[in-house]
């Protein structure tokens, strides 16, 4: 595990921003921090990047404690901050040269050229950053995080504030970087983005709600429901269904039955047979799918009940 946290905690005054966080990140994978605004994503990232210290607990990043040896961590990380800034009166290239000047790089200008070309900013390299669009600035900020070949890339809400088209472009970029083998920690409050990009998702709300792959998150909370639409529903039919031992739960919405089965693949055909035998005239049978959105909300709600 390239990153591990141990009861990582950060308070601001009385406010608990990050609460006893224990999580790990795998090398070469994208780990997502998913949570609503104020969940502590930025604070966590800053602690991992050695920008602020934890109140208690600690993190280990590639074998280094960021709270103890911040500069050593800085050698191996690149970060896209939540509101990335540049010197607006200097050119894009000059900005990158300045930031590259703090690392021991023998080929800074070659790296700058490589990434400016990759990010399709090479033609604008001599223009002042102040004249750049938001999307261009974001690409430049990602470039800045890359030129010194960091082992770990922190991306704090990389697509927030960008229009959908540019967001999709940035996501494509992130996927390419992941294919190149970068370890990426990405924070977002956008669920589909997390699902699209991340190998694993840490749902955070001060404390860790859960950490799993997107597929497992789905499965864990995916309560399979079969929706059966009938011409009409009578008491007889309802009683027949409630007698079936593999039916966990059932409800009715006008002419549609919503039935939760213990094992849908095994019991669905039998259920249909029983309904027909009880005199039901079936119009349509479908699966009710849960979006990741529902899962996310139910996760956060579960948390609220505790």
């Amino acid at each position, binding site marked *: 595990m390239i990153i591990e946290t141990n009861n990582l905690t950060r308070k601001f005054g009385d406010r608990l921003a990050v609460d006893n966080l224990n999580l790990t990140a795998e090398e070469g994978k994208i780990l997502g921090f998913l949570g609503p605004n104020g969940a502590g994503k930025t604070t966590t990232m800053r602690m991992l990047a050695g920008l*602020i210290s934890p109140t208690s607990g600690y993190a280990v990043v590639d074998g280094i404690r960021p709270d103890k040896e911040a500069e*050593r961590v*800085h050698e191996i990380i690149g*970060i896209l*901050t939540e509101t990335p800034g540049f*010197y607006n009166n*200097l050119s894009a290239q000059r900005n990158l040269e*300045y930031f590259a000047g*703090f*690392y021991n790089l023998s080929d800074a200008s070659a790296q700058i050229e490589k990434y400016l070309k990759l990010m399709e900013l090479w033609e604008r390299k001599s223009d002042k950053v102040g004249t750049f669009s938001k999307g261009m600035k974001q690409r430049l900020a990602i470039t800045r995080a890359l030129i010194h070949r960091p082992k770990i890339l922190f991306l704090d809400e990389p697509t927030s504030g960008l229009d959908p088209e540019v967001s999709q472009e940035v996501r494509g970029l992130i996927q390419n970087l992941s294919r190149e083998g970068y370890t990426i920690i990405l924070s977002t409050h956008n669920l589909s983005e997390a699902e699209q990009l991340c190998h694993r998702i840490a749902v955070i709300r001060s404390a860790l709600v859960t950490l799993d792959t997107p597929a497992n998150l789905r499965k864990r909370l995916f309560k399979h429901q079969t929706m059966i639409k009938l011409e009409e529903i009578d008491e007889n039919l309802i009683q027949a269904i409630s007698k079936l031992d593999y039916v966990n739960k059932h409800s009715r919405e006008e002419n549609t039955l919503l039935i939760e089965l213990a094992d849908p693949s095994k019991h669905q055909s039998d259920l249909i047979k029983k309904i027909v035998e009880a005199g039901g005239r079936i119009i349509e049978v479908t699966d009710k799918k849960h979006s990741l959105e529902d899962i996310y909300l139910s996760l956060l709600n579960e948390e609220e009940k505790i």
Partner: protein
Amino acid sequence: MTKQRIFNILKKEWQVMFTELNSLMLVTVLPVIILAQGLLYVWLIEKFGGESMINSSFFQSVLRKISEVMSAVSNLEITEQLQVFLLSQFNFYLLLIPVMIAVSFATFSIVDEKQTHSLEALLATPVRTWELLLGKALSGAIPAIIVTWICGALLLLGVQVLGWGDLLTYFLNPAWFIILFLLTPAISILSFLLGVIGSARAKDSKSAQNLVVLIVLPVLALIGIQISGVVWFTTILTLVLALAVVVIDFFVLKVAVRLFSRESIIISWR
């Protein structure tokens, strides 16, 4: 690596500064105004003989004081005495240059970083925060010192050209050198650090600008004290003053380093 990083900071700071018309004006127009003013006063005395001034009781008492400190002055004609008096004021008057340049550069540099949020990305590089502070301090102090020295040289040149060369023997005393080569650097650094501290807390460039005024005040007070003849800064007194500023530098540096820690920049510069 440290040297390389500090050069990197210096280069960038100067590039950014000199894209700003304000900072260009500051290092050119301000010294010219101060210099011209100083020479103008001295010239006016010669031109108009300073008759009425000489008769005023204020100048009589001031000139008595100079003569006490610099006995040779009393051998001069009364207008020349006045010229020496005014040229001597120039010592402290000159200090306005490093103070204003250093404070302005500091506030400009910090406020710019704050508004653009560029510091967070910078602090995520392996740069040490003291390297950053030192680099920035030098970027403000070096032009402040150089411009002051140029002004000092131009003043001497002006005095020569305008034909008061012999006044220099009274005016070019050790205090002048202490002011130029010890007090000026010390006060440049002090002004820069105060500028950094102030603008680290200020919300925008306006309130940071007010700070300039606040820091200029003690220098004005110094000029006032000497010009009114309350205290005449002899060599010893000037040295004491310069050393005091050096000591204050160290204390202020401590405060600045704390305010400039990575943690406090990230957390409180919002």
